[in-house]
């Protein structure tokens, strides 16, 4: 099974090299979506053996994921793994996230940080719980980590999920789409590293509220 990792990245020159080094032996191909970075993200990714797909201007996480999934499908991926570029995920968790797809028990797997939220800062945990509640109320999908960026999708699922939102609301949208398309969804616990770097790249309360607003508008548009 050809596995391709999709990594959306925006100005991640400090960590992207290390993230790619950790992933290389675990997957068949790495696709970096450089979402209009101003720094050397694309250059570093290329020298570390990743395929770089570059947005000319910044379009947001959702747009970058959509582009990455499209690129992976064109490269004949049979399984697509989405992975955050900030270094918070552990490549060692990949086999566990892939397992339900390989065994045919899932079309889409979400790596959940919250079965064991040790080390997650309380404010982050609260924000995640609000995200889960919103996803449940708006889209009827009950998960423990609706905002996780670590996922695995079978080719079947990747071809069916339509990403229409450009920004952070994409995480909830993917869940909503898997429900709409009747995909089998499984959550697998993963570990996380909360480094000073990944925290600084994380979401502020204000961004969270804006995401919430856009999700409500998105729901009404359906």
């Amino acid at each position, binding site marked *: 099974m050809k596995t391709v990792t999709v990594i959306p990245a925006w100005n991640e020159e400090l960590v992207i090299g290390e993230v790619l080094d950790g992933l290389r032996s675990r997957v068949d191909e790495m696709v970096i*979506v450089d979402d209009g970075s101003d720094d050397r993200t694309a250059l570093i990714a290329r020298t570390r053996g990743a*395929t*770089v*797909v*570059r*947005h*000319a*201007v910044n*379009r947001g996480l959702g*747009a970058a994921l*959509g*582009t990455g999934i*499209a*690129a992976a499908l*064109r490269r004949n991926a049979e399984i697509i793994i989405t992975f955050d570029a900030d270094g918070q995920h552990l490549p060692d968790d990949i086999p566990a996230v892939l397992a339900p797809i390989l065994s045919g028990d899932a079309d889409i797997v979400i790596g959940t940080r919250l079965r064991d939220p040790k080390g997650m800062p309380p404010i982050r945990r609260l924000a995640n719980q609000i995200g889960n509640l919103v996803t449940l109320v708006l889209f009827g999908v009950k998960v423990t980590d609706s905002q996780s960026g670590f996922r695995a999708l079978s080719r079947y699922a990747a071809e069916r999920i339509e990403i*229409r939102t*450009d920004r952070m609301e994409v995480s909830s949208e993917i869940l909503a789409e898997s429900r709409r398309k009747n995909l089998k969804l499984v959550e697998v616990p993963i570990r996380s590293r909360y480094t000073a770097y990944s925290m600084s790249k994380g979401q502020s309360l204000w961004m969270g509220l804006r995401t919430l607003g856009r999700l409500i*508008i998105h729901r009404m*548009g359906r």
Partner: protein
Amino acid sequence: MSLLAIQIIIVAIAAVALGGAIRRFRKREMSVRWLALWVILWVGASVVVLVPKTSERIAAILGVGRGVDVVVYLSIATLFYFMFRIMTRLDRMEREITKVVRAAALRDSEKNE
């Protein structure tokens, strides 16, 4: 008939807005439909301001108490309508930009191989 300051100000604003609209229409930056809309809006506003009786008559027809209230209600409704239109159009534009950026990104990445 003596004019109140507020009447002069509003009519002046209407005149400037209309002038701008006509100029943009001449430069083909504005469609006939939008020009017609602006003309109706600003001429209507001027008439209501200069002859307050008109709004009172409309108020009576609609069953609203005062003429001024009719103007306020209609203004708010109109503003909401335009805001909604702008938001949906903006949303569509964003999605289209993403489509263009994505297509270019995918094409370039395949060309580089």
